[in-house]
Structure formats: structure tokens, C-alpha cells
């Protein structure tokens, strides 16, 4: 049967196009315009060309913040992905405990970012916080406001507490989607628990794990509120990540042109990494 071409369908795309234009494309174009100018106030601005880009790209503080950001994001993945898989494997698969466990696991995801920072700020305080007092009581010198490693590990632990649940839920859904026939075949072959995980469960989790890695990498790469509330980027600039670096530049210093150039570089980093992940996802799906 011949299909008739109906171009009216394009009209249905228009509202989305208008929405995306207003919320993303026009603001992005404005940022590009800002990035080549020195904006002093609403009426005073000077064209500076590529000056901000050259300055930003050669700024050792930016290099340090980018390095910290990459180390943080990969640390998040190194901890959260294996931990998420392990917890998902331990979760019950039938009975009343399924619902109870799912609710408990999902709870951290419901807490707003700045509240998570406040919770951990109190929890980790070395004078009144449960974690800080306990660690110091055990003879481990711990003060996240003074120690670099303590600050790093606290921010990492906070992110693990907040977001491992997402990996758990994704892995759990992936595990539940594996047909029983696979396990029956493995039992008939006398496969060990490890062999079942390695050759049955892990390959079937590839899709959800790729999504988990993508989401966690992107989200941790844009982290702002939690470390800002917990450590304020300190001690020194030990936990100052890219978002906070940008916010300080744009809001505190009102260096709009420089911040715009930095935003575009940040955007290009995220765009490139997202494209790599997208390509990996689509290629693994085709396989």
C-alpha cells in the first residue's frame, strides 16, 4: 500500500521547537554573545574577541578545578557502580520485603541537594556530628573543614549516600528483567555463583549500566549544591569543582564575559562526553 506524505505532522513539532528555542537555543546564543565582550553593566560593554577564551584556557585555577572534577567524577563511578550492583544483587526478589527494600533504597533520592549538604554538614562535624565524633573517638583525626583528604572523602561519601540508590534501582530492574530460563540453564550446567554473575547477569546488565554510568558521570560532573553547602569549596579550593568555579566568576565577581566563555568550554566538555556515551550506548544496543 502506498503511503501518502502528510506534512501536517511538522506542525506538531513547532511547540517543542518554540519551547527549546526559548529555554535553550536563545539563551545559549546570548551566552556566545557575552563571551566575546567585557560586560561592565547593562549599558556598558566592550568587544574583546577571543581574549576571555585565551585567558580561561590558560588559567591554572581552571585546570586544577577540571582535574578535581574529573577525579571526583571517576571516583564516584568507581565506588557507586560496583556498590550499586552489589546491593541490587543482595536485594530480595519476592515477598513483602521487595516493596520495603525498594522504598528504603529510594529514600535518599527524594532528598533535595542542598538538604543533603546540610545533613552531612551536621553529621560530619567533628564537635557535634555523629560521624565526626565517632571517628575522632576511634582515634582517627577527622575534621572536614581543615583536612583536605577528610573534605574530599566526605564529599565523595555524601554523593555515594545520595546517588548510589539510582544505580541500585537501575541494576535491580535490569536483574528482574532476566528470564528464569537463563538461571535454569546455568543451574543445569552446574555454574558457580560467580559464573552466573559473570556470564549471565553482567552481560544482561550492560544496557542499564551504560545508562547508570552516563547519568552518574553527567550529574557528578555538574555537582554544585552539596559540596557548596558542606565545604563551601574548601579547605582552600580542595573541593571547588567546575560549577562552583563558574558561579563564583559569574555571580560573586560579576565577570559575565569571562563566565560566559567558561560556560561554553564547560558545555563543550559535557557535549563531547555525552556524545561518546551516546555512541557507546547505541553501538552496544545494536550488538
Amino acid at each position, binding site marked *: 500500500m502506498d503511503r501518502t506524505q502528510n506534512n501536517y505532522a511538522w506542525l506538531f513539532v513547532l511547540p517543542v521547537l518554540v519551547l527549546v528555542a526559548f529555554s535553550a537555543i*536563545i539563551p545559549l*546564543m*546570548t551566552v*556566545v*554573545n*557575552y563571551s*566575546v*565582550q567585557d*560586560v561592565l553593566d547593562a549599558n556598558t*560593554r566592550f*568587544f574583546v*574577541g*577571543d581574549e576571555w*577564551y*585565551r585567558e580561561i*584556557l*590558560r588559567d591554572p585555577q581552571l585546570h586544577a578545578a577540571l582535574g578535581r572534577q574529573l577525579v571526583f567524577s571517576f571516583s564516584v563511578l568507581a565506588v557507586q557502580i560496583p556498590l550499586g550492583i552489589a546491593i541490587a544483587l543482595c536485594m530480595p526478589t519476592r515477598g513483602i520485603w521487595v516493596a520495603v527494600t525498594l522504598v528504603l533504597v529510594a529514600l535518599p533520592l527524594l532528598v533535595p541537594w542542598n538538604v543533603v549538604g546540610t545533613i552531612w554538614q551536621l553529621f560530619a562535624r567533628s564537635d557535634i556530628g555523629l560521624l565526626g565524633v565517632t571517628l575522632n573517638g576511634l582515634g582517627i583525626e577527622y575534621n572536614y573543614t581543615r583536612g583536605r583528604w577528610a573534605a574530599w572523602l566526605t564529599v565523595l561519601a555524601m554523593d555515594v549516600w545520595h546517588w548510589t540508590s539510582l544505580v541500585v534501582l537501575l541494576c535491580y530492574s535490569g536483574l528482574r528483567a532476566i528470564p528464569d530460563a537463563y538461571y535454569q540453564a546455568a543451574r543445569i550446567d552446574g555454574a558457580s555463583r560467580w559464573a552466573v554473575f559473570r556470564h549471565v547477569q553482567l552481560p544482561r546488565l550492560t544496557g542499564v549500566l551504560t545508562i547508570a554510568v552516563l547519568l552518574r558521570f553527567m550529574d557528578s560532573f555538574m555537582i554544585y549544591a552539596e559540596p557548596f553547602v558542606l565545604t563551601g569549596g574548601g579547605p582552600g579550593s580542595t573541593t571547588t569543582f567546575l560549577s562552583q568555579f563558574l558561579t563564583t566568576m559569574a555571580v560573586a565577581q560579576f565577570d559575565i564575559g569571562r563566565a560566559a566563555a567558561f560556560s561554553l*568550554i564547560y558545555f*563543550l566538555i559535557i*557535549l*563531547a562526553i555525552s*556524545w561518546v556515551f551516546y*555512541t557507546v550506548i547505541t*553501538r552496544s544496543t545494536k550488538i
Partner: protein
Amino acid sequence: MDWMYWTPPTALFFVAIAMILAGMTVWEVVSPTGMRRGFLPLQTTRGDRLFIGLLTSAWFHLAWLGLSDFHPAYMTVACIGWLIVVLRWG
């Protein structure tokens, strides 16, 4: 549109992008693309190759600005060549 703080170079940049997208749309209508593999290590459509070409061009420009003191126009000319190479043989 004054609030967008337009400048001639950025206006030229966006006009160029808009013309590329319009041109690609016309090209697609006249001659629909298909998946194929060139020197890039993956199968791509024409749109994929344009995206890869533009994204890598942006990165080449950043590298140029970060590592050299020459005018970015040299890199822009090189990137136009690179974009054509990716679209044709990528």
C-alpha cells in the same frame, strides 16, 4: 534583540550555522542520507558527520586558542577544510 548583546562576528557565526543547517535540510530532502562507514571508526549518517565535524572543530579552536597566540581565523579556515573532509570521507 538588543538584550542579546549581538556583535558582528557572533551574528556571522550564527548565520553560518543557520545556513549550514538549512543547506543540510535541503540536501536531505533532495538526496536522503544513509548509514555508511568511512575513515571514522563508526557508521554515520550525513547529520552525524556534520555534528562530529562541528564538535571537533570547536575543540580544535579551543586547542588553538589555548596553545597558540595566532589569530583564530587560521584555524577557522583549516576547520572548514576538515568539515568538508569529514562530510565527504568520514
